[in-house]
Structure formats: structure tokens, C-alpha cells
């Protein structure tokens, strides 16, 4: 390799590993897209203001003991839902708000217990729509086995919100948290076909004039994950739900945090035909498209078969697949062996030109 190219590549990897700097004077839509810009905002503003050992892990939930180190641990998380449109094939803002919080608890290894829900409503919002949303939340909470036990309501003037925003918080009890350790030789699994939520919401906006017959994957993952944990106790290293930024962003964060590489096999990544077609048309990569009912799970290599079998035995994991493996080198990078037989980098999403989707 040319020396110059080698030097540049090393410099880039050093720059990527460095703490990001916030350069903008104002918040832009890129700061909400779930990629590098979001991470930069979180690091430079929120973590700087609130930093503490629990928050600094930047996990889906904070997990902490409540009765001394030996006692049970609680997981605590919060989520804001601002999806547009509010109703889309396969779901709506209500079940999205509930499932998102349930999943953030579940991937932390917690059994979700209770949720709270705060509503910001725009003056003029139809009560019938609000009833439809709350009914959907009740159904989703019932499916996940949690109660919505506290809440708040605010109404803002017409034009100051997009109909309805929902913030949900949740607590759960942690029985066995994933070890958090990720080692070369571990297997990377995904619990089902990716990108369905993101594509559904984009198409539901009607701007694109594409009919694809695709529905959101929004679903509570706590039951699926409980089955997985029971089938291979101690083998689950790490779990994340692949929301904004998609599977690619989750794996990049994992690779950087754990100082490992992830080698993906494009042929093994499950993508439904409608999502694949829409992504081809729109020039999107399904790896970056948001899911709301899919988790990325790292298990020890030995437990791969048992984990896959346990996931596939559950209705929400029927399309689960092993999509790659953890490698030692080069640390911090996600590589994809393409269907075409080449290899490329799968980097973090930078800032996307897509409609907001969750």
C-alpha cells in the first residue's frame, strides 16, 4: 500500500476515536437523525452537563442497584416519540412510544415493570385521534405486560407542535444483565428483517408516491429476549435495539466501545423484498434504516446455534439470522462482505436527508 494512503487511513481512525466537537451554533435536523451529529450533541451538551458514571455509558437504560451491591438492580429509561405521520401501516405513535421504552429496558436485560407517559398536544388536535393513540398504547402495554402508571399532559398553541408528541419512561428489574464484554469469535445476530419501520414511515408520508405494501416492525421484545436468555444463560454479551441510525450505527458504537471489528456478510442480513426494493429506488442502505422491533444481539460463538434456535422459536424472532462475527482487527470498524464479493466499510450515519421516523 502507498505510504501516504496508509498514513491517511491511520489519521482517520485516530480522528474517529477522538471525542467529537460540536461546531454548529444552532441545532439542525442532523442532530436528531441518530448518527454522528446526534452523538456529538449528546456528548458536547448533555453529557457535559449531566455526566455521571451511569449516564456516561450511554446505554439504552441506566442500570443501578437499589439495595446495596448485592440487592436487585433496576433499569430506568426514557424515550420521546415525534413520528410523522402519527398513524402508519403496522402501528402508530402510541405503540411506538410504549414498545420503544419496553425494548430499551429489555435489551438492558431487564424485565419491564411500569411506564409513565407524558403528552404534548397541539391546540386543535382531534380527541378521536388521541383516543385511538391511547387505545393503541393500552394494547401495546398489555402485550408487553407493563402498566402505564403515571403521566402528564401539556397543551401548546396551534402551530407550536406537530399534533402530538409522547414521552415515555420506564423501570424494570434486572435479573441477569448481559455481560457487556464483546470478544473476537462472538456471533452477531439480528432478530428479524431490518428497515421495515423506517421504510414504512417514509412511504406513509406520501411524498414519494411509492406503494410497497410494507408495515412497521414495531413490537415489544421483552418476551423474545426472555426466551433467549433462558435458552443460553450467560452467553449473551450485548444487546441493542436498532432504532434511529439502524443496525449499522448500533454495530459501529459496539465496535468502537469494545475496541473490536465486526465483519458482516451482506447475504446473511435479512431484508424483506419490499424494503429492499424501496431502498434501491430511494438510494438508501437498509443497514441505516430504523427498526422499532428488532434487536442486534452479540452472543458467544459457542452459543450461536442455541441463540438462533431460541429466537426463531418465538413469533417475533422467526426471521432471526446470524449476520456476522466479531473480529480482533481492525478495532473500531464494521466491515461488510458484499453480495458481489467485495468488501467495504460500513460507517456511522452522518446526518440523513430522510423524513424523521421515530
Amino acid at each position, binding site marked *: *500500500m502507498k505510504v*501516504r*494512503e496508509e498514513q*491517511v*487511513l491511520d*489519521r*482517520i481512525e485516530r*480522528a474517529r476515536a477522538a471525542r*467529537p466537537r460540536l*461546531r*454548529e*451554533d*444552532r*441545532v*439542525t*435536523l*442532523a442532530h436528531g437523525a441518530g448518527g*454522528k*451529529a446526534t452523538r*456529538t450533541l449528546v456528548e458536547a451538551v448533555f453529557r457535559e452537563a449531566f455526566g455521571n458514571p451511569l449516564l456516561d455509558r450511554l446505554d439504552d437504560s441506566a442500570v443501578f442497584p437499589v439495595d446495596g451491591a448485592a440487592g436487585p438492580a433496576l433499569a430506568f429509561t426514557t424515550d420521546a416519540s415525534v413520528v410523522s405521520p402519527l398513524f402508519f401501516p403496522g402501528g402508530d405513535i402510541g405503540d411506538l412510544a410504549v414498545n420503544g421504552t419496553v425494548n430499551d429496558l429489555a435489551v438492558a436485560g431487564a424485565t419491564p415493570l411500569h411506564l409513565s407517559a407524558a403528552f404534548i398536544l397541539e391546540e386543535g388536535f382531534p380527541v378521536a385521534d388521541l383516543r385511538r393513540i391511547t387505545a393503541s398504547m393500552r394494547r401495546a402495554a398489555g402485550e408487553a405486560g407493563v402498566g402505564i402508571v403515571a403521566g402528564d399532559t401539556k397543551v401548546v398553541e396551534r402551530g407550536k407542535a406537530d399534533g402530538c408528541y409522547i414521552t415515555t419512561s420506564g423501570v424494570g428489574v434486572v435479573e441477569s444483565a448481559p455481560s457487556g464484554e464483546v470478544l473476537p469469535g462472538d456471533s452477531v445476530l439480528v432478530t428479524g428483517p431490518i428497515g421495515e419501520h423506517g421504510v414504512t414511515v417514509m412511504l406513509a408520508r406520501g*411524498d*414519494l408516491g411509492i406503494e410497497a405494501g410494507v408495515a412497521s416492525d414495531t413490537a415489544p421484545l421483552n418476551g423474545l429476549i426472555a426466551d433467549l436468555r433462558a435458552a443460553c444463560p450467560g452467553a449473551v454479551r450485548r444487546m441493542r435495539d436498532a432504532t434511529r441510525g439502524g443496525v449499522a450505527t448500533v454495530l459501529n458504537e459496539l465496535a468502537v466501545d469494545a475496541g473490536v*471489528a465486526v*465483519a458482516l456478510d451482506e447475504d446473511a442480513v435479512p431484508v424483506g*423484498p419490499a424494503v*429492499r*426494493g424501496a431502498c*434501491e429506488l430511494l*438510494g438508501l442502505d437498509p443497514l441505516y434504516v430504523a427498526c422499532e422491533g428488532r434487536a442486534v444481539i452479540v452472543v458467544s460463538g459457542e452459543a450461536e446455534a442455541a441463540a438462533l434456535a431460541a429466537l426463531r422459536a418465538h413469533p417475533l424472532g422467526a426471521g432471526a439470522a446470524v449476520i456476522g462475527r466479531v*473480529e480482533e*482487527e*481492525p478495532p473500531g*470498524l464494521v*466491515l461488510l*462482505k*458484499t*453480495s*458481489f*464479493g*467485495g*468488501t*467495504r*466499510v460500513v*460507517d456511522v450515519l*452522518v*446526518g440523513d*436527508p*430522510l423524513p424523521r421516523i421515530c
Partner: protein
Amino acid sequence: MRHVDEYRDAAKARSLAASIAALCEPGRRYTFMEVCGGHTHTIYKHGIEDYLPEAVSLVHGPGCPVCVIPMGRVDDAIDIASRPDVIMTTFGDMMRVPGGRGSFLDAKAAGADIRMVYSPLDALGIAERNPSRRVVFMGIGFETTAPSTAMTVLRAASAGVANFSVFCNHVTILPAIKAILDSPDLRLDGFIGPGHVSAVIGCRPYGFITRDYGKPLVVAGFEPLDILQSIHMLLTQLAEGRCEVENQYGRVVPWDGNAKALQAINRTMEPRPYFEWRGLGFISHSALRMKDASFDAERLFDIPGSRVADPRSCQCGEVLKGVLKPYECKVFGTACTPETPIGTCMVSSEGACAAYYNFGRFTRERVKEATR
């Protein structure tokens, strides 16, 4: 997926790669330019360079429309967008392109009404729904996108939509290729010709490249096998001592182009005497403007006509001419990254620098080490 999977067959790719290697004369090196940004994207996204022998290298051309927009035009567009009665509409790729005073994304955050659209017809729809506002569509792209802008203007005219106009930045590919061919520091053996542009203009206009400059050109599609096959066709021409325009993308590109699309362009737009290209400077008759002043945002809004020198550190021009590989630029990967683009080549996913940074910077040698 039909019409896609058959062009991504790894077994066929291996067989083509073997034929490509066999066509290379020992000791000779071959350099081909892919003119179109879409090709650059495909090359990196699918890892096509992994299939090429050391003797064949690809350089990236000026065919990414976002990459060739000079900073002054972005500033002018933001000037229009910042007026209170204006709704500016644009494609997503334009949102992050830096002007001298920030990007559309920054202007939007500061209060300008800038909306992303997927087609100029969407912009016309916004104009129809907002009769009290003036809706401007930022027209950008080569002959590929110019017809849809032209058709939209024709529709606006026939529907009598008076609050719609175009800030026209459409450029034409042939003068840019000629500028590259005239560049004294260029060493090329042939061109992978732009597929989408050629679907509109056809293959015939490339004749001057073979005739006057002695370089073969193969119009190529956008699937990975299309590109490998085009490289094979170029090498075959060189091996046989031929120099011709050939059409690999016959399933989409008619030899004489699309008369209806060309007619729409000619009815609504005319060549500008000259236009500034990012990194390439002023090129005569290389861009289009609106014929009808009532649809021309440039004349309706009395734009400042900003001129902003490219940042001294930025070497987009050399990258666009294929003189430098992206990683050879002074600021690549440090000051200039996809999140902090200095040059436009780092903005669009079709830009050579962004494609190399996002997909390709893990080179063949490192791949072999990592996946051994």
C-alpha cells in the same frame, strides 16, 4: 430481485475479473475515469476495486452534480431562501453543501423555510398549495435531472402557476469532459461514460472524445457487473487497437438519446455563456438557464451573484479532474470529513471523497489482513 440480482452475481464477477486480468499487457498500467458520481458510489459500495488487477486503476470524474456547485451559488440560493415570502425547495443532497456562509441546513435552523423534495413536481405542488408564497425549486444536476425540471416548468406554465420559479444550476456533461481532456496534467486511457446522462443525450455526442482526443468511451450502467463489463470493453478496445464510443448500457440508453426529454430542455432552458464549476473554474457553455424570465428565480429575485473562492486547503478540483485520489488531498479525513465537509466532494454520497471515506478507505491490503 429481478433486474438487480443478475447484475450482482459474484461468480460472473470472478469470471469477468479473470478476463480483465488476461487483457492487461504485462508491465502496462491502465487508468480509466468514471465520469459519473453514481459509478463512483457503486464502485465503492460493492467493493469493485477488489476485483481489479493492480494494473487497472480508476479515477473519479466530475459527474456528481452536488460536487461541482460553487460556494457562491449556494450563498445565492440561501439569499433567496432567507426572504420571508419564499419557500425554497431542494433535493436532500443539497442540504449539507457548504456555501461561504453555511449550508441550507444551517439556514433552515436559522429560520429560512427550506423544504426537501424528491422531485420538482413536489415543489410545484407546494406552490399550488401556498399561493401567497413564492416557491423556488433549486434545479441541480446534469442532463439526467434537467428534463424533470423542464417538464415541471412546462406544467406550471400550462396550469398558470405564477408563484413557482427555478434557481437553475443545471450543468451539461460534454464541456466538463472536454475541460478535463484539455487539462495538461491528465493521464487517462479511457472513460466509463455516464449512464443516466446518456439515456437523455445518447451516445453520439461523445464522438469528439474518440475522434479528437483518441480516448475510448464505454457508456456504463450502475450495477457492479455493468462497471466490470465496461472496463472489460475498454481493455478489449485497447488490446485490439480500436478507439470507439460503445454502449454497455443498451437496456436503458438509446444511441440517439431521448428526443422528448431533449425537446423539453430546449423549450425551457438555454445555454449560459459560461458557468463556474467548483474546482474546475469557468467553463463556457457548460450550464443552462431558464429561457422564460417569469420562471427564472435568478432574474425574479435579483440575486447578489456571490463569488466565493474555494478554501485554500481544499483540493476538490484536482480530485474532480482525477489528478488526485481522495486520500491524496491535504485535508481529506481530518479537517474534511462527511460531518465537516470543506469541499463538496465530501458531501454527496456520490462525491468521490465521501464514497472513499464511507465505503472504500479500508484498502485491499487491509481487507486481506482482516479477513484472512
